């Protein structure tokens, strides 16, 4: 797996095919829309679904943390898909295994529990928009530019459609960087796509299996 280096506001970001960004200067791993326990959620709704799937997400998260020697994990919302279930315990146990790592959650629309619920599992909760240096982080993309700061957000599950000669076409999840706003792909595998509109000058990086590619 190769990540792709990308500079923004003189900071270095590694775009990883596992749908995460590593922010080198701050030793921070950025992820959005994990939707942990989504499979389990179906079960509670009466749909029988084996749970093996949600464990995979944590495995991948672990591999990213190890790859980059991460000191901080910044989650841009929708950590859990729904109310407390098995996935909470799994995540809590995993977090407990990383006492030195700071884990920050900016709650998304799916994270509707009281702040304390997240704090007791070792997460630091920050409300959106969360400003840090030249950046502003949020779950839902902010509507207007904020004081020259660059917004990084989730929620959209961005994807693009590509086409070529001979009626070739495909759609892929992507990282998107506009003039003052960037979007992270959904980390959770089991999630839908939101097709985005791309303007001249925007930069789009698609996830092509185990590689991240920029689309010209």
């Amino acid at each position, binding site marked *: 797996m190769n990540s792709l280096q990308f500079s923004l506001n003189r900071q270095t970001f590694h775009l990883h095919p596992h749908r995460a960004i590593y922010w080198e200067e701050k030793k921070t791993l950025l992820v959005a829309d994990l939707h942990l326990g989504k499979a389990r959620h179906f079960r509670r709704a009466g749909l*029988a679904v084996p749970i093996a799937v949600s464990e995979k997400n944590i495995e991948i998260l672990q591999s990213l943390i190890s790859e980059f020697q991460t000191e901080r994990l910044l989650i841009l919302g929708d950590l859990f898909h729904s109310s407390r279930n098995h996935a909470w315990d799994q995540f809590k146990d995993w977090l407990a295994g990383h006492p030195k790592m700071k884990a920050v959650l900016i709650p998304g629309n799916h994270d509707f529990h009281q702040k304390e619920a997240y704090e007791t599992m070792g997460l630091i909760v920050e409300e959106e928009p969360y400003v840090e240096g030249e950046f502003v982080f949020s779950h839902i993309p902010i509507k207007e530019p904020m004081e020259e700061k660059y917004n990084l957000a989730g929620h959209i599950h961005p994807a693009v459609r590509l086409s070529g000669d001979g009626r070739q*076409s*495909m759609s892929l999840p992507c990282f998107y960087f506009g003039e003052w706003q960037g979007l992270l792909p959904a980390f959770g595998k089991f999630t839908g796509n939101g097709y985005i509109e791309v303007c001249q000058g925007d930069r789009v990086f698609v996830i092509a299996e185990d590689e991240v590619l920029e689309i010209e």
Partner: protein
Amino acid sequence: MANEKYIKKGKAWFKEKGWKAFPFQLQAWEAMLDGQHGLVNAPTGSGKTYSLFVPILLDYLREVDQNKKKPKKGLKAIWITPLRALAKEIQIAGQRAVDGMGLDWKVEIRTGDTSSSVKSRQFRSPPEVLITTPESLHVLLARKKYPDFFSQTKTIVVDEWHELMGSKRGVQMELGLSRLKGLNPDLKVWGISATIGNMDQAIEALLGSSFEAGKFEIISSADNKKIEVETIFPDEIETYPWSGHLGIALLDKVVPLIKKSQSTLIFTNTRAQCEIWYQKLLEVEPDLAGIMAMHHSSISRDLRDWVEEALHDGRLKAVVCTSSLDLGVDFRPVETIVQIGSPKGVARFMQRAGRSGHQPGAVSKIHFVPTHSLEIIEGAALRTSVERRTIESRIPFLLSFDVLIQYLVTLAISEGFYPDEIYPEIKGTFAYQHITDEEWIWLLDFVTTGGNALYAYDEYKKVEVDEGGKFIVTDKGIARRHRLSMGTIVSDVAITVKFVRGGRIGTIEEYFISQLSPGDTFWFAGRALELVRVREMTAQVRKSKKKTGKVPAWLGGRLSFTSELSDMLREKMQVYVDQDYSDPEINTLRPLLDLQHYESLVPSKNEFLIEYFQDREGYHLLMYPFEGRYVHEGISALIAWRISQIKALSFSIAMNDYGFELLADKEIPINEALDEGVLSLDNLSKDIQASVNSVEMAKRRFRDIASISGLIFRGFPGKEMKSKHLQSSSQLFFQVFSDYEPNNLLLRQAYDEVMNFQLEEGRLRKALERINEQEIRLSMTERPTPFSFPIITDRLRERLSSEKLQDRIRRMKLKLQR
């Protein structure tokens, strides 16, 4: 003969009614009284019901005479019908015969529509004859004390067996029969079937373990109904479109047919086409309002019942319909049949034709409306096929483990079962005759523990084994959910369409509604409707005055040519090559075929045509096996894969029933490919495995399997799961089995079904064998030909690539959003 006395009674009743028994009816009476099993091969409206209903009564009269005591009361005979709508007619006919013979029997119906109070009354004091469906029979087997209910049953008749046997409903029927035979080893099993290509297999599958020489008879009514096929031609063949599937351009030619007939049935191939034809007919002929109706499977049962009744009574001038009217009660007033577009098979075409001309000796006439010019040739192919009666076979399903799992749980929720008792019964069926002991043990394990992959979850431990070794379900919740999900027909999740003020109109796939916003107008059941809101699984609508609106596109597989029709189509190409223009279709189509022959080639029986050309879209390679789209799906993937091994290429693939296209953005090395044996039979199975995305296909198949086997519960009535959720949960099971239990039988079944029913591997191999004996004719053309045009304009495409994803992406551009 001892039977003679009773046959005379039957004849006497016929005489009283002013009828005369047909030879096949007398033959059937005799055979049943002789204690035989059997199959009556007779079309609808031929008196088939009385061929088997009468001897059931005669047999009883004999029993009364032979015994001093009156025989015990109870359910004497079961009559299975695949269609609820047919039950009423059979009941009326049956009751008439009962009364005519002076018996005090009751003939009753029991289907999903029967109220629960009637059902429990029937269970307490059964009628002598019960008319029911395969599904309702299984629901009976799910009731405690069912063995008492069936204790007096001597005869079972499976009506329209040809309809059931090519589906999992047929398997379900076989299992039901095996249990009834287990309860009563002397049970007589009879079937009624229209003509199919494999009549012998039909009776073998029906009888299962009772299939023994000398113990059964096949009885045929003479099939001498005359069917006339007339193709509707456009005025100018030169301007008729080369592609398309609606056929609206010939609407003006259909209107006069409707006008001059008492009543007309217009068959379309899809529900969307049905809606559009109905709407367009009303536009050009507003007088038809009120005397024309529409009939398809998404329209509510009440509305359909009304249409069928009105048709029966001669109150309707025309009905635009789909296969939903292929089967059903006789509509005597129907004089004219119109088929829009290719019927894809001979049996279906004949069945539709047979819906007219019910008077004895009358001719059934069917008008064929081609939807694009090349399709005209199918008119000639259909006529010859009908004349020669080359009718398709119905292939029975084998080893459908999903149906068997459902059946085992059914038995476990009622009386429970002992494997030693049930296993021989199951092995006695045609569908499971080759089941192995290992498979059987796996199945028992699966229903009791959930198997290797699911043992950790309690909800899959459905069945328990008690101390005596009986397999039984004790949990009431499991039993309740199982009862609600019995059956083998898995339909898409549907949204109910209702008026705001109430009144159900029908059902639409969730997918369509999700594309509409409140205020949008759409056409459904022949009306313009405005979507008001969607609440849970109901779309509330009101009438709209707008003239335009979307027409729902129902998702559903496209039908494919049967091999019988494919053969005939190739024969008709040869007829053209031989310059025989006696078929009016070929004569009319001459300008187009001449153009094809001039630009490229019309292949004779021993030629195989390949076309290749380049335009701004890319490089087009076309091949014409004329084998139907299912077989083309497999061959095209195979050829694309083999070529892509020579050169890294990405293909977009399209196909119809005549041929297929491989489109690439780089030059295709066709000559090299032919030299290297791209069409060869070597390594065929291996190459097919490598080329088709069998995983994706099996995943799609698995959805039904997961539902039938009870892995997925579709929800309580009124609280059904969304199809998105169903889809993803079946995919998860597929994934988990693939990862943790690769030898799971349900998983294997999904792959087997793909090979046997979707890719039709057997047919594919035969097609390649034929092609290998033909002369390859590679034709480099300047532009699209009449043959290729309908294919290259098709938007529905498959893809195959041997290039690295990254390389492909580098040549692509962002698609601009609308």
